[in-house]
């Protein structure tokens, strides 16, 4: 199963997701802000599936992605799933080119989350990008 990082400023959402994903058998880590997420992403040597909330105080999801995209060591490492209450099209953003970003609308369907994670995680394991 995949190693997942859940990034959301809301503890309850993080909690719920963690529980759900752990029950599915994944290893789940949490980050309460974009900055913490970046640190963790940089620190780890593993390839993670990052579930990223879009709207967060401080550094929001988009800024995190931009930061990662500019970081040459980080960019090719992980895969991202962005949770968005509004409409987000990563392909419209030039700066995110090359970064594997999928989108899940909020409120999401848990089954869809599992499906996406499996998809993305599988791609990571096989060495490619989702």
């Amino acid at each position, binding site marked *: 199963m995949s190693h997942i990082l859940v990034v959301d400023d809301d503890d309850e*959402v993080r909690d*719920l*997701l963690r529980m*759900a994903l752990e029950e599915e058998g994944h290893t789940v880590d949490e980050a309460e802000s974009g900055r913490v997420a970046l640190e963790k992403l940089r620190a780890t040597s593993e390839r993670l599936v990052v579930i990223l909330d*879009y709207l967060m105080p401080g550094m929001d999801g988009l800024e995190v992605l931009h930061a990662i995209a500019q970081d040459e060591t980080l960019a090719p490492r992980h895969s991202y799933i962005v949770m968005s209450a*509004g409409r987000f099209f990563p392909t419209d953003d030039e700066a995110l080119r090359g970064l594997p970003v999928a989108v899940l609308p909020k409120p999401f369907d848990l089954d869809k989350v599992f499906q996406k994670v499996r998809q993305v995680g599988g791609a990571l394991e096989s060495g490619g990008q989702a």
Partner: protein
Amino acid sequence: MLHSSEPEGAQRLTVDEATPQAGHLPSPPASRTLPIAGGSPLWLPARWRQPGAGYLAAALLQVLAVLSTWVMTRAFSAFNFPSALPLLVVAFVALSWGAGPSILALLLGAVFIDYFLLSPGYSWSVRGNDLIGLAVFLVVGLLISRLAGLHKRVRRAAEALAESLESERARLQATFEAIPDPITFYDAQGTLVSANPAGLQNIGARPFPASLEAMSGAYRVRTAQGDPLPVEQLPVARALRGEMVNEVEVVTPGPDGNDRIVLTGAAPIRSRQGQITGVVATSHDMTERRRLEREATERAGQLEAVFNSMTDGLVVFDAQGHLLQMNGAARSLLSLERVAGYSLEQASSGSSRFSVRDEQGRPLKQQEWPISRILQGETLTGANVVDLLLRSLDGHEVQVSVSGAPVLDEQGAIAGAISVIHDVTERRRLERRTQESLQALLDMAQTLVQEPGEEVPTGQNGLALRVVARRLAELTRRVIGGQRTAFYSFDAETERFSPLAVVGLLPEQEQQWLADPGRGHRLGENLPPALARRFLAGEVIVVDMREPPLRDIPNPYQVRTLMAAPLLVGQRLVGQFILDFGPEPHDFTPQEMALAEAVGKLAALVIDRDRLLREREEARASALALREANRRMDEFLGIASHELRTPLTKVKTSIQLAEHRAKAAVRQDNANGTLLAKTLQPIQEMIGRGVRSVDVVNRLVGDLLDVSRIQADRLEVRLVPVDLIQVVREVVEEQRELFPHRTITLTVPAHLPTLVTADAERIAQVVINYLTNALKYSPEALPVEVGVRVDERAARVWVRDQGPGIPADAQAHLWERFYQVQGVAVQQGSSVGLGLGLYISRTIIERHGGQIGVESAPGKGATFWFTLPLAG
């Protein structure tokens, strides 16, 4: 010999030695060796006039004489004069050849006489008597030869004199005859005795005047003035009295009868004793010359008149730079009175009192002066005309344009210079004034292209216009002149002029003027209607303040006439400016009016531009505000979306998690027993319902947010190429899962894919909306049909249900916000709805450039459809 009183070194006329020269004794050729005068007799041919001929002749003749004597002595016994013939010979030789040969003849005679004639013959002895006789012979001979020589000399001199006199006379005669002027000779009584050919010609056919009286009468001699000349005043008469008359001008008719002007002179001819023996008179026909002189004088007079009437100055210099002539215009231009002798040297010395400078004011050295250049051979015309600055002698600064050319003599050498001096001071002044006006107008135009922020701090736009208007007023006054200039803006709505700026007042007055509320006035107020009409038509008008009704309005500055110019942008009046000269009478010239018109046009543009800029500022500000409002709206919507959906997320996730765990428990428990399964089953159902509720609420939230977006015109669609059929298919699949017991059919055309340029999510939203409605309002047992059809240019999607249908009057309102169909029971599912779905759907489809609609009749069900234009 002809000679004139030439100065030293002049050539003397050569003298022909062969011809005897009048007035001079001929110098004996070669016989200068003898100290005694000699020469050859004139009766001898020239060939024989050798120096030795005399001696030879003497010898020969003496021989002959002696022989003859001897013969005669023998022949005539009474002839006893041995020395007679020899003496004769001596005399003859002396007379003919001079003293030298005669002495030889004498000696020879003596010898021959002694030898041959005296007894004893043929011997040299001499007897006493004979000796005396010989001696007497010798003495007499000497005397004779001496006398003869003298005589000869005298005669020769006389001959020479006669010859020279003759040649002189001949010359005189030739001159006399050749002289083209009449020369006449009179005797002591005044009778004309002779005349030279010219004189004869002059007399012509008329008789010789017999006397002076006759001359005076017949010849009607008059003075130059025309009065008859009294006889005693005739030049001949005066000469007869001993006067030397020179150059008297008289009028007398010529041989043809026409009067002629004659210059006469007369001189007395005196004898050796001084007595007047006659008069010689000359005359010279001056008629032609006088006529030419008169013509020349006339012409000169005309020239002089032209010269002096020329408005340009004319100066004439000789080659050395001395001023020869200067006409009146030049004199007054330079205030130069004394002309004669004035030279360039003087003009340039005297510490440059003319202060000659070039156009830029740089002083010019004398050799750079145009006159100097002309004297060097330059011709200054056309483009080479020189502009100078001068100071006249009485201190005026003048600017002149100098042209001219050198005057050449026949050889082409420079003999002088003529120069025309044209006063351009006034023209330059006008040019300068025009230049200044132009510059001021350009300055005005400059304000047009300047940003107001460059002059005035932002946020003070009203003030900016006043500042600009004041500047305009200053420039206008600079261009046209005047005492006061005031600018007004015009409000088309109120038809009133409001004061903007004024120049020409004292600062406190200016403040007062601006602050005076009564200063603004209505259009056409106090103006005669005709003038007001012209003003509105764009004409600059001149207003006389002394005329009614203006006479009655308060006039604190005692303005007499003023000029008012409308400021028009196209046909639109935006203001006016008024210019006056105070109490001074002033005729506004056409140039000033034209300038005012130009200023008016520019000023109109400036004022209008100010208005435009202000409007643009406001628009920009409101655009800014609008953008800000939009930004806030977007922000709000984003936050609202997030804030509303987060709790939903939590709820849904919680519930789903619970569902999962329940399922897991059921799975696990299935091995153990069915009790848990039975207990949990309804719980699972409830959970399922909860999840669905969350979904409904989510949809409602979505609808509300969408409506807000539509309100704020912030609903955006992201158009990309999308396969429409795929979108519809996915929606249908989803709804089938949600409502497994309903029949939803899908009809799609065979050729796939169907590309449209659309926002997939939004189109799906519309299809979901249609399907949800269809499922909600049609019986569970009846199917719902979904279809996609591709026409030529558009793709059509429809959802048909077999519900109760929609009456026509309701159809019109279906698409409005918050509309909910009345009297239709919800057949299935939740009745929860806000009446927003169709409104949002319509907006979405309209945004895609498609069409939307419904076909329905009560009892016939309803078909909701929309079309989208095909991509490409």
